[in-house]
């Protein structure tokens, strides 16, 4: 099977990820923060080391500002629900995933917040000045921006947007689900207040892992409260990170795998991974554009996209193309709306959606060739 569904979850994982998870189950056991025996200490060290590696990756000075969650969706829910209060106003883009839009729309429906949306162009690119237009007129507490679209792969210039956001005294939440590990993220130079990431995509960890970086000074309310192993004499939730947002036993085996995934990414270097994935993306886009009937979506400027590519083949429904690729060509990909209806509306592909290829760091040029051949065959055939 050729795996082009890395925007859903990455596959395969580095062997070190599986080995780290095995090592935890076979040799470490133990929970973090509760007991003081050596097995518990080892587990606590493992969690600490993963946090430190993530801090190194995102250039975070104090790793205690990273909170573990089960995925980017939980991180975004924590950031949105924990930060916003009744009467607040939010600005976001038309390229957001439902992991942002659903928590926001829920608060809007309950009459608690007002949402302002920056419309991206048909390539999925947002103009940073459009945020200034809103921020000039309205008091916006939070700006939520998808770093790279899971539909078009289009990258938002988060550093430029953040500069505008802070100029007007607002705060910046970045959804890095598609960029963490695949595109450089620097919370200091990008001026990010909160960064939501998942562990199982380009960080190459297992599902069930993710996190939220919270800049010092950002006051969040927890969405879950409970035991943390600290301040146990009190029945009041601790007010310090990471404990404030990590009640209950952590997914230690997942965090063990995530740590090994992040270590792998750090060893390879995000810039190198980015260059390799960009080469495959360029190669695919250049050749796919020549196939009759193939309509590509997303930015034409390669520097403004990650390795996520949406397209359609004329005469075919996206789901039919994905089915044919799976059945006849052993190619795994995703079709439909990709949980981002507004991004598809922006591109003009709503409601039918698109076929999505998402390349990862373990794909190679030979696989891209096979993908192109498959698309050409499907496009040329009268009927399957």
């Amino acid at each position, binding site marked *: 099977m050729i795996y082009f569904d890395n925007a859903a979850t990455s596959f395969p994982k580095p062997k070190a990820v599986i080995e780290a998870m095995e090592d935890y189950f076979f040799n470490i056991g133990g929970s973090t*923060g509760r007991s*003081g025996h050596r097995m518990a200490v080892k587990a*606590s060290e493992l*969690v*600490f080391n993963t946090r430190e590696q993530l801090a190194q990756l995102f250039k975070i000075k104090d*790793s*205690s500002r990273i909170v573990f969650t089960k995925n980017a969706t939980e991180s975004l829910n924590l950031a949105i629900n924990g930060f916003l209060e009744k009467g607040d106003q939010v600005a976001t883009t038309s390229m957001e995933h439902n992991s942002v839009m659903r928590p926001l729309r829920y608060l809007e429906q309950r009459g608690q917040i007002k949402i302002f949306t920056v419309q991206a162009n048909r390539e999925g690119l947002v103009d940073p000045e459009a945020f200034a237009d809103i921020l000039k007129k309205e008091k916006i507490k939070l700006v939520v921006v998808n770093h790279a679209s899971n539909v078009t792969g289009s990258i938002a210039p988060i550093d430029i947007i953040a500069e505008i956001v802070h100029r007007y005294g607002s705060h910046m939440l970045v959804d890095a689900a598609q960029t963490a590990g695949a595109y450089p993220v620097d919370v200091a130079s990008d001026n990010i207040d909160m960064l939501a990431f998942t562990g199982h995509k380009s960080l190459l960890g297992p599902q069930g892992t993710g996190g939220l970086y919270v800049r010092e000074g950002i006051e969040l309310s927890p969405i879950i409260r409970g035991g*943390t*192993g*600290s301040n146990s004499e009190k029945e009041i939730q601790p007010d310090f990170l990471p404990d404030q947002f990590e009640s209950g036993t952590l997914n230690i085996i997942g965090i063990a795998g995530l740590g090994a995934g992040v270590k792998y990414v750090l060893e390879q270097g995000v810039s190198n991974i980015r260059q390799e994935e960009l080469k495959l993306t360029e190669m695919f886009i250049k050749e796919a554009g020549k196939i009759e009937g193939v309509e590509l979506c997303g930015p034409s400027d390669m520097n403004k996209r990650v390795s996520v590519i949406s397209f359609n083949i004329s005469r075919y429904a996206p789901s039919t193309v994905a089915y044919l690729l799976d059945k006849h060509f052993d190619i795994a990909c995703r079709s439909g709306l990709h949980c981002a209806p507004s991004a598809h509306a922006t591109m003009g592909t709503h409601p039918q959606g698109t076929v999505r290829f998402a390349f990862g760091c373990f794909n190679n040029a030979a696989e891209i060739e096979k993908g192109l051949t498959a698309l050409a065959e499907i496009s040329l055939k009268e009927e399957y």
Partner: protein
Amino acid sequence: MPQVVVIVFKSTHDVIKAKSELEKACIAHELIPTPKEISSECGMSLRVEKPLLSRALELFQSTGVRYRDDLL
């Protein structure tokens, strides 16, 4: 035998960070379950010999390890 001091930390994250910093600085220490008479915390604490305490605390302050000053 020199007197020993138990240092209690704000969170598990800080205990492990403290342990890692002490190891890097070659300051002898031992990780122990927090003694009941010091605090009702259910986590871990660090024990160091009293002559090493000031060096350890300086190290914690410079690296941002959050320890419980009130319980020293």
